[in-house]
């Protein structure tokens, strides 16, 4: 019981500390999830607390993730006029991007000889964690691994995403926002917001729609495709 309380307090403090650092310096290298996770893992290893003890607290802490995902409908609703205005471009762009993102990751890991559990877990790397966790659960992946791939993708996108888009001559603010949100979920959205309000709104919408679309289609096809 005491251990659970300790792990929860440790997680909250590590998160707040990492968040403070990011807000203060605004550097994409100061990734909140990476820093807090590193602090927690090191503390657990030093104090010799096994992961099993941490996971009980983890279940309590992630309890609100479900309602938090439902809350993503709010930015979607607020931007419904943009959705109407750019309807086609948005749906085709996000749909194609989500599909290609899943296919690329799955093909590379299949040819790299990884196990089914890892392949399924990396398939959902471009959608935000609550979606990725559910996709993993419905198709036989691992939640922690799926979450790690999501964070890795988001970190890559937040550091290199904007530069890459410029190199690819993607200059339209709507296109830039949608690409960042579709591929690099919340972390990409944060970077899109730094670029401009329109990019940010588009990225937030892309994150929500890509998550819905991938969760609705991926478990079915992954179960059929990868035995």
């Amino acid at each position, binding site marked *: 019981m005491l251990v659970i309380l300790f792990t929860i307090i440790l*997680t909250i403090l*590590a*998160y707040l500390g990492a968040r403070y650092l990011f807000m203060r310096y605004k550097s994409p290298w100061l990734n909140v*999830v990476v820093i807090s*996770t590193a602090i927690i893992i090191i503390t*657990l290893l030093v104090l010799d607390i096994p992961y099993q003890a941490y996971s009980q*607290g*983890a279940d309590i*802490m*992630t309890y609100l993730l*479900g*309602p*938090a*995902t*439902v*809350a*993503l*409908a*709010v930015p979607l609703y607020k931007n419904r006029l943009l959705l109407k205005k750019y309807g*086609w*471009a948005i749906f085709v*762009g996000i749909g*194609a991007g989500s599909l*290609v*993102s899943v296919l*690329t*990751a799955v093909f*590379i*890991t299949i040819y*790299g*000889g990884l196990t089914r559990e*890892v392949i399924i877990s*990396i398939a959902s*790397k471009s959608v935000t*964690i*609550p*979606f990725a966790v559910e*996709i993993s*659960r*419905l198709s036989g992946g*691992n939640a922690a*691994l*799926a979450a790690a*791939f999501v*964070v*890795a*993708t988001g970190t890559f*996108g937040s550091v290199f995403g904007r530069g*890459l888009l410029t190199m690819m001559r*993607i200059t*339209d603010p709507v296109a830039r926002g*949608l*690409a960042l949100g579709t*591929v690099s979920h*919340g972390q990409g959205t944060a970077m899109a917001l730094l670029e401009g309000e329109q990019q940010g709104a588009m990225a937030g919408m892309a994150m929500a729609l890509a*998550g*819905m679309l991938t*969760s609705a289609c991926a*478990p*079915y096809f992954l179960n059929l495709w990868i035995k």
Partner: protein
Amino acid sequence: MLKVVKMVGQIVLLWVIYWLGNKIMSMTGIAIPGNVIGMGLLFVLLSCGILKLEYIEEGAGFLLKHLLFFFVPYAVGLMNWGSVFYNYGVVLFVAIVLGAIIPYFIVGHVVQFFHREDKQC
């Protein structure tokens, strides 16, 4: 104090919608996650005006502001996966990097193409 009560109430309301989403999933047996159904449900409720934005706006804002917090406990689960990263690190790295660059290109150019067409019309 009143602000906290209001926030908690709004989060409970979001939780009820999430719960309904899960119920719909288990009753119909479709392979769409309950949180996605809940999100769709909330969007419909807002669009039809059944639920007003101010009933949930603050609670939703709080949860989304701290969305990253919920990622942390999952990421700590990586402790158990050290050997996979050690053995297959290069493959996973390539999958992450190409799996971002190629879709960036696709989304960006597809949207630019359609967006330009729209402007001509």
